Every structure is written in C-alpha cells, then in structure tokens.
C-alpha cells in the first residue's frame, strides 16, 4: 500500500476557544487531486493553512510522508506550498517575487530560466512582466504571479485556496490549466478549496465536503438550513417560497441543519407514487457535472431556492432524458435525514 502523503489524526483547531475545524482522520494519496467544498466558514482555508504548516493545530497531529510535522519543519517546508485565497505579492519586481522561494532554498541554478518557465506556465510572458513592480499588475495578473512563484518551486504538494475567486474567466482558465500541468509534469499532489464545484468534480480524485469544520461527506449531500416549524404529526417542516414543504424528523433544536443524502429523481407529469415515509418535491435541474473519479454525473436540482444534489450513472442521464432546465420530481426518505 502506498504511504499517504498526508495523514491527519484527531485534528482540532480553535480560534478564541471556538472550534473551527475537527477532523478525526483524513488521508491524501500522493499525486492525487483532492477538492474541498463547503460554504464560507466551513473550515476549508483553516485546513489548508494547517496542511501548509502555516499554523500549528490546537490538537492532533499531521503526518507528511509518515513524519509528524509542524510549522517550519525542515522535512516538509521545501515540499509544501500554499497559494492563499488573497495572495500577497512582496514589494519587489515580478521576477524577484517568483524567484524568492527558489532563493530561500539556495537553488540559484538556472534561476532565470525557471522563473521564465513558471511565468509562461501562467500565461505571463517574462519579457513583458518580469521587470514590472508589484503594484503595476491587475488582480488576475497578481494572482497568476503568485501561482508562478509556487510552480517555480516544483513542490510535492500544492495547496490552492480559492485560486480562481475574483479573477476573470481567462485568468481562471490559465490558473486551472497551470495547476493541473504541475500534477501531470511533476506528480504534484493538489489540494484545492473552491466554490467552483463543477471544476472540482471534473478534475478531482476525491472531493471532501466540509461543513461547520467537520467532514460531511463527498459533496453529494444536501444541507438544508433551519429554522424548522413543528407539525401536528410530530415531525418538522420548512416552508419554501413556492409553498412546497421540506419535511424532516424532529431536530434537536429549531436551527439545526438537515443533511439529506439519499435522493431519487424522476421525470413525469404526475406526482409519483411513494411510500408513506417519503417526501416528494418538484424542482428544476439547474446544473450537471461529470465526476472524474466515478464517471457519474452530479445533478443539482433547485427546489424553490434550495439546491439538492444527486449522483446518477451516465446512462440514466440519456435514458431518462435529464437535462438542465428539465422539471423533475425529487423524493427522499424522511427517517434517513441526518442532523448536524
């Protein structure tokens, strides 16, 4: 069995006594691409900072190539690099920004060539950009320079925190391509946090869904936020803007979040017949994305304004005639709803 490049055991991280991340166990295989999805505040950036050895976890251990590591660990600091969500360029030229990490490593061989190659990987010709000062770049260019500074290091692990947030479509495409090329050419392990889940499903070997600092699953789960209103039959419900009801078992508190992960969908004009404990809702398919790892298709259905996710085999998409914009029936088992 291949030794995982990362192994996390009983990890807990807190800010001002507030636990923001709690992961019992997590492994990442070498040269894999792992996606982190989840809403803001779910712990994605915190996890990346801990994996990037920027911060020390409050509790628990992180193993890198089998060795327990901490910030500044000699065994890991030259092999892991993090591109933060809002990368900062240092007050120096583009060339000196990109070459900074190489100089820290004392790696001055072919410095100019390596910097030029990294810049061209992110679509910035060195003859136009290398001499530019840090303040003479657009947001997208600065983001690409920051990525080039990481790619020039040829890291074993590249951690990307929202790499395409706040940049235009062309820059986002270049960033995506350059990141994937690092994996193809150098066997770099990529761990990417992003809201662009279509891209993540397309390229990732594994997608981890984080919610409130905990691992929720693989991203196929639907999380429905409270508040919940009590019903006469003892269950609770959420009334959607179009009048439909999401019915769930009674939660521990009215603002708990329901996790619905076993969802079935069907086409048809009439309301399908279901069992007594099942709930049926009507919605529209809003998105479809091919999941790289399984070859399945992740379908997002909008029920009023609540997005539900379901994973379908590819043949069902064509046989059942699903397409974005198509109206469908969605059903789930009421007792199978979980709470977080």
């Amino acid at each position, binding site marked *: 069995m291949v030794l995982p490049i990362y192994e996390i055991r009983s990890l807990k991280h807190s800010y001002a006594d507030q636990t923001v991340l709690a992961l019992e166990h997590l492994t990442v295989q070498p040269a894999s691409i792992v996606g982190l999805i989840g809403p803001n505040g779910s712990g994605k950036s915190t996890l990346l*900072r801990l994996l*990037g*050895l*920027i911060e020390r976890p409050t509790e628990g251990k992180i193993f890198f190539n089998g060795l327990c590591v901490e*910030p*500044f660990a*000699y065994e890991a*600091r*030259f092999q892991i*690099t*993090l*591109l*933060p969500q*809002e*990368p*900062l*360029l*240092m*007050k120096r030229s583009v060339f000196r920004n990109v070459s*900074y*990490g190489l100089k*820290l*490593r004392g790696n001055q061989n072919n410095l100019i060539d390596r910097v030029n190659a990294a810049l061209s990987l992110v679509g910035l010709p060195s003859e136009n950009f290398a001499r530019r000062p840090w303040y003479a770049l657009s947001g997208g260019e600065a983001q690409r320079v*920051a990525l080039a*500074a*990481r790619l020039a*290091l040829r890291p074993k692990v590249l951690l990307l925190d929202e790499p395409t947030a706040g940049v235009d479509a062309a820059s986002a495409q270049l960033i995506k391509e350059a990141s994937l090329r690092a994996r193809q050419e150098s066997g770099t392990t990529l761990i990417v946090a992003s809201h662009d889940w279509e891209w993540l499903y397309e390229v990732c070997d594994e997608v981890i869904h984080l919610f409130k600092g905990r691992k929720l699953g693989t991203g196929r789960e639907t999380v429905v936020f409270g508040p919940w209103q009590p019903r006469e039959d003892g269950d609770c419900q959420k009334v959607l803007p179009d009048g439909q009801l999401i019915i769930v078992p009674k939660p521990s508190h009215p603002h708990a979040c329901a996790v619905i992960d076993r969802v079935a969908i069907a086409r048809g004009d009439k309301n399908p017949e279901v069992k007594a404990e099942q709930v049926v809702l009507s919605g529209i398919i809003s998105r479809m994305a091919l999941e790289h790892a399984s070859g399945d298709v992740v379908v997002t259905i909008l029920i009023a304004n609540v997005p539900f996710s379901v994973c379908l085999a590819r043949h069902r998409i064509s046989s059942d005639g699903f397409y974005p914009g198509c109206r469908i029936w969605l059903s789930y088992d009421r007792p199978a709803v979980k709470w977080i």
Partner: protein
Amino acid sequence: MDFIFEGFLQALNLLASGNAETYSAIIATVTVSSYSIGCSLLIGIPFGFCLGYFDFNGKKSIRTVVDTLMALPTVFIGLLVYAFLTHRGPLGNFGLLFTLPGIAIGQTILALPIVIGLSATAVESMDQKLGVTIMSLGANRRQLFFSSLWESRHGILAGAIAAYGRVMTEVGISMMVGGNIKWHTRTITTAIALETNKGQFGMGVALGLVLLAIAFCVNISVSFLRRRY
C-alpha cells in the same frame, strides 16, 4: 521687508565666499546629526521591529511609553543630559559637556522614541498575509523575520526621515548641552538663534537655507532609494 531680501543676498554671498564661521556651523550640524541618527537607527530599528512584530505581555504599556517619549521637549532632554554630563553628574568624568558627542547623546535620546515608535507602527501595519506568503514559500524563522523587516522598509525609512528632521532642527539640546561655542559646538540652529538676536539676518537666513538644502538632499536620496528598492 528690505532686510529679509538683503538677508537672502547676504546668505548667497556668505555661502559662495566660503565663510568659515558659516561652514563651521554646517559641519558641526552634519557631524552631530549623523552620529545621533546613526545611533538611534542602530538601536531603534531592531527594538521597534520587535515591538511591532511580537506579541507579549506589557506590549501596550511599552507602546504608550514610547509614544509619550516621541513628544519629549528638547529643552527637557537638554536639561537631563546636562545634569548627567556636568562635572557633578554621574557621567561628568567623561568630559562630554560642551562637546559634539555630548550633543549627539541628547539628540539620540530625542530621535530614539521616534524611530522605535514609527518602526513599530510600520511593522504593525504590515499586511497580515505577508507572513503566510513568506512561510508558504518555505522560509524558516530567521528568513521570515528578515523578509518581514525588508518588506516594512518604506515605513521604517519614513520614521528615519521624521527623526532626522527633528534632530536637524532642534535648538534646546544643542544650546544647553553644546553651549553654542563658536568654532566648536555652534550648530546651524543655535547660530540662527544667536545671529537673529544680534540682528544679523544675513547669517541667519544663510544657515536656514543650508538647513533646507540638507533636508532637500536627504529627501531626494530617500526618494531614489525607494524607487530603486
């Protein structure tokens, strides 16, 4: 108004003819301010950087003391340094009273809180993301420390200029500790005060122009350094 115009003409004449008394005051000022700013930068930058960079108990109290000392009156420093350097004082044996090094000690005390306070502010106002960026590129603790210092260089330089301006233009310390001795400890500012009292505006204006010229040269040099680095 004529006397001011005549003062300017006399100033140009004094500078162009190489008037020995004028140049003595200029050399004394440049010498003593160079010593004092050199010492205050040497002590103040590391201290100010640590004050801004690290979090520790009592940091806020130290900051308050430093900020208060930034407003120290020059005559009060002059009085304290005089008391220490006079032959009855604890440092009287060194014979530093009425000497340029004596003035430099007083001016260092004047400049030090400014360098420390403004360096600490420059470091504190550094983008918090800088540390993450430097660490994410593989820096060790020492490299993180020095890279952060280098990144805050513009703010620290601004503090150094402010301190140099204060040192160059002070009168109280130079007058009390230096004694305004002709050819010896007379600086530009003490000379201006004396010549104005005597009604010799030409000399006063000449020395004032030199102060302005020195300030201009310092700022030009700093602007060049900022553009270059």
